[in-house]
């Protein structure tokens, strides 16, 4: 999970390192837009813009939705997704911690059976 989060951060920084992509985020901050709109605004080919949007989407900074033949882009819900990921990571940490605790408790129970409760300090 550490690796997962790190990868996500790397993706985010990589996504933000490009001036066009920062411009796209600014644009989407004003209003949602289709890839065609964005391509026109930034004077790019559709394919070129699609690549940028893919990078932003991969980093969770942008989400896209296809309705009919138009793909609409909007700012992503990075924070919400991250909170969910964090909680799951936290749950996994405790889950493996408690698995180890279960082992320790099993061992203490066995010892108690053998030596009796009183003798073991």
């Amino acid at each position, binding site marked *: 999970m550490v690796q997962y989060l790190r990868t996500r951060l790397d993706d*985010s920084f990589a996504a933000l390192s490009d001036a066009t992509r920062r411009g796209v985020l600014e644009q*989407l901050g004003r209003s949602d837009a289709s890839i065609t709109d964005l391509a026109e605004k930034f004077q790019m080919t559709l394919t070129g813009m699609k690549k940028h949007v893919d990078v932003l989407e991969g980093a969770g900074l942008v989400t896209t939705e296809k309705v009919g033949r138009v793909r609409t882009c909007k700012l992503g819900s990075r924070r919400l997704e991250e909170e969910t990921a964090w909680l799951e*990571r936290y*749950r996994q940490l405790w889950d493996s*911690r408690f698995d180890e605790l279960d082992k*320790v*408790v099993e061992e203490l*129970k066995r010892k108690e059976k053998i030596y009796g409760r009183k003798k073991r300090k």
Partner: protein
Amino acid sequence: MDAKRESEPTAMKDRTTVERKSERELVVTRTINGPARIVFEAFTKPELLRRWWVPKSSGLSLLSCDADVRVGGRYRLVFAHGASKPMEFYGRYIEVTPHSRLVWTNDEGDDGGAVTTVTFEEKGGKTLLVMHDLYPSKEALDASLAGMEGGMRETLEQLDELVVTLGASAGRS
């Protein structure tokens, strides 16, 4: 006819739950297969605590583990994480009720940290553990979740700032 009880085995899966009860509260629950007396012992004897608190899968190793479990007593855990600086977690116990309740503070943060309350509830030879963390603010809980791997918090804050800056400049037309 009644020989098959298929639903039972799956009921034991994913026994650990985590819930953000409110902006400032995080609750972890789990049932441990043993009486409260033994589970409490595993929480309060440092030599036992150190055997389970740091699971191998976490990538951390425990350098030292001291716990003076009595009201006002202190604990200190030091972890190594790869090549980065060791991380320290410390605080003091503010309530110790044998076999049923433990409360400790988490003092390693800059400003007030969370207060952790653990309750041990025995039922039929098993113990339901409820770990309740109360943070001083929503921001403190957010930061704690984000910073769990140490150092990540700063990175995320920087990223957030950057995104906020971008959002703000987008607002100006």
